[in-house]
């Protein structure tokens, strides 16, 4: 049967090695994580909110943000889900959790992975701490995951 399908289709790929210029904000954020195991946010001069991860423009006020704020490596869960489906781009095997984490000192939620696969063990308000990768590879996964504390 399958070669009947194969005759009807053409299999191909889009394989492109993209190289995205990070810019000052992404560079500082990722470098601080990799080098000093520190997580930084940036504060908007107009609304005063500290955003993490940092970017140049506050999307609410459309103002440039220049003031860096060092945040804690711990935070509280404001929302989570536990993943039990898998795809080729997932960095680890399910089950694991994605969560919104309000890092100490931040005014917006940070999205990352929690290495917990049982929804009963997770709850909004629980405390989590960042676990940093041994050998950083210049990407968001240089925080390998967060773990419940």
């Amino acid at each position: 049967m399958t070669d009947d399908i194969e005759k009807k289709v053409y299999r191909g790929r889009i394989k492109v090695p993209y190289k995205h210029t990070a810019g000052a904000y992404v560079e500082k954020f990722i470098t601080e994580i990799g080098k000093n195991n520190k997580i930084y946010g940036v504060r908007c001069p107009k609304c005063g909110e500290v955003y993490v991860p940092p970017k140049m423009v506050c999307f609410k006020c459309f103002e440039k943000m220049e003031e860096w704020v060092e945040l804690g490596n711990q935070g509280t869960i404001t929302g989570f889900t536990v993943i039990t489906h898998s795809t080729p781009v997932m960095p680890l095997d399910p089950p694991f959790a994605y969560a919104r984490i309000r890092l100490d000192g931040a005014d917006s939620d940070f999205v990352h992975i929690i290495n917990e696969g049982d929804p009963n063990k997770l709850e909004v308000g629980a405390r989590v701490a960042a676990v940093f990768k041994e050998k950083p590879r210049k990407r968001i996964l240089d925080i390998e995951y967060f773990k419940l504390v």
Partner: protein
Amino acid sequence: MSRKKKGDIFEIKWKTNLPYRWSIGKLAVKFFEELKENKKILGSKCPKCKKVHFPPRAVCAECLVKMTLDDMVELPPRGTLEGFTVVNYPFTDPSTGGIRPFPYGYAIFKLDGADTYTMHFVNETDASKMKIGQRVEAVFNDELVGDLVADIPYFRIVEDEKEGD
């Protein structure tokens, strides 16, 4: 903003690797069957305006009429060179992620009996040897598998008509 040297750009890398399974349609399925089994090249002829399309397809753009398997017509593996070039620059081929070998001859020609043109590889990488109006002929691979570029790796310039059968 300071001009950063090449070396120290801080970049985030991402290699896309999107596998696609494109449907080719009934006419193309027939085209590749005929190519593989009988070394034949088929186009599709609009039942209304009689325009012969190559490659074969199911919709005639002039009449917005469907073309089916019954409208497929055989085209000789020969045509007339309308234009040519020699691709002589490096680029990443998005289908493989690697650099496509170059230089390679690339031409546009009209198969005898077709009303549309076609672009394909030609086996000439010296532009001075190619001239508009020359005759070209498909060169078939020994073993045919039903893939356009594998089965017809290139068209060749026919020196003079006698030589081409």
